[in-house]
């Protein structure tokens, strides 16, 4: 079952290496569009956690779609696999120590192309103050980590 919020509570957790050290965190979010998109249509933007911005090009963000982990660069070249509208993607963020117990404000930005709409409507810009029609906005949620 998907939650109505785009960022899903279920799936928000720290991730650990084999020695049990927290090396980052991950969360799931569902597509805010009425149809699935080919991965190369996606424009992966930043993750913002408690005000700290982690850029897509930092090398610290990957997306897991249908069990396969992709870097933003890999997604930009992949027009074979699709992010389905009913299947949340997991966003994995490298952050030594992970997130402390308690509340966290999680936000993500991304966009996608929509070829049948005027070209001006799907120009994605990762600046937080810019809003584009096709996904170029910020999805946010405040959630607890145990």
């Amino acid at each position, binding site marked *: 079952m998907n939650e109505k919020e785009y960022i899903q509570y279920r799936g928000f957790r720290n991730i650990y290496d084999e020695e049990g050290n927290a090396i980052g965190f991950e969360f799931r979010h569902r597509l805010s569009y009425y149809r699935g998109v080919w991965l190369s*249509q996606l424009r992966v933007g930043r993750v913002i956690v408690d005000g700290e911005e982690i850029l897509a090009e930092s090398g610290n963000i990957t997306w897991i779609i249908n069990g396969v982990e992709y870097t933003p660069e890999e997604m930009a070249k992949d027009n074979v696999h699709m992010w389905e509208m009913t299947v949340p993607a997991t966003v994995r963020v490298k952050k030594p120590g992970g997130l402390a117990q308690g509340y966290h404000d999680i936000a993500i930005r991304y966009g996608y192309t929509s*070829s049948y709409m*005027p070209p001006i409507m799907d120009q994605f810009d990762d600046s937080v103050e810019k809003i584009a029609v096709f996904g170029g906005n910020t999805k946010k949620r405040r959630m607890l980590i145990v």
Partner: protein
Amino acid sequence: MKYVPPKGPKRGVSLYSYTEIIQLGMTLEDCFMEMQDMGAHGVEILGNSHIPGYPNMTDEFVEEWYRLLDKYEIVPAEYGHWIDTRMFKDRPLTVKESVDLLTQDFKIANKLGFHCLRTKMGVIDDILTPVENWREVIDEASPIAEEYGVIMLPEIHLPTLLEHKMIQDYVEYIDSRNSKAFGLNIDLSVFTDNFDGMFLGPGAELRGSKPEEIIPLLPYVHCIHAKFSRMIPDPDPESKLMFKEYNIPYDKILPILVENGWDGWMVAEYEGRDRGDENALSEAMHQHQILMKNILGY
């Protein structure tokens, strides 16, 4: 007794209307049940949206599809798909890549029993003029479409108006090749006569086409998107229609389709702002079907 669709304009539903609730767990069977309740027997699905694992459709899905069509007396009316010409950030799709995408969908649509395809082409401007290479793409895809028994229908949607050049380009294309693989889908948004509360893209002129402008195009129109955004009680005390679409004059358009002998599916496409609310959504879907049923008489 097996359901037999009547001749003339037929009432159907695009599952696009249910998107926000499908994303939360509404199933294909839930959608079909509501369609049967409303006597809306034709379905439009969108490949990218409604086929689990698309483009890799499973045999289990196909089996379930036919089981549900039979159980709920639903007919495949139209299959929506896209040529995503802005697939890559640095270049548009080539003709071959476009034809490959189309072919992938022809095969899926054929397996699911669809004849009409709502083919969304990439556009290059604010009034939705298609990409320059559209004729080459359709030329190459047409024999393949015929092989799979499908017809590609670009959707004519506001801010495009019926008088715009691209409509004439499409008609000339069909005539010049005597094409059996290419036609038109008209979205009723083009007949908008009240722009209050409408979401408008950058190319919108705040006017619609006149309903009678569809008459010369009808031989090319294979499917209609029965767009609606806001249903209100019919304000005319003499009217027996019960409801009215606030922005689009259904009472003027549908009789033209009947009088001119048009035969095809009108699939309901709801764009209301409240469609994320399942109660409001089902109510609006029913109101819209009542309006169409009361105009058509069936």
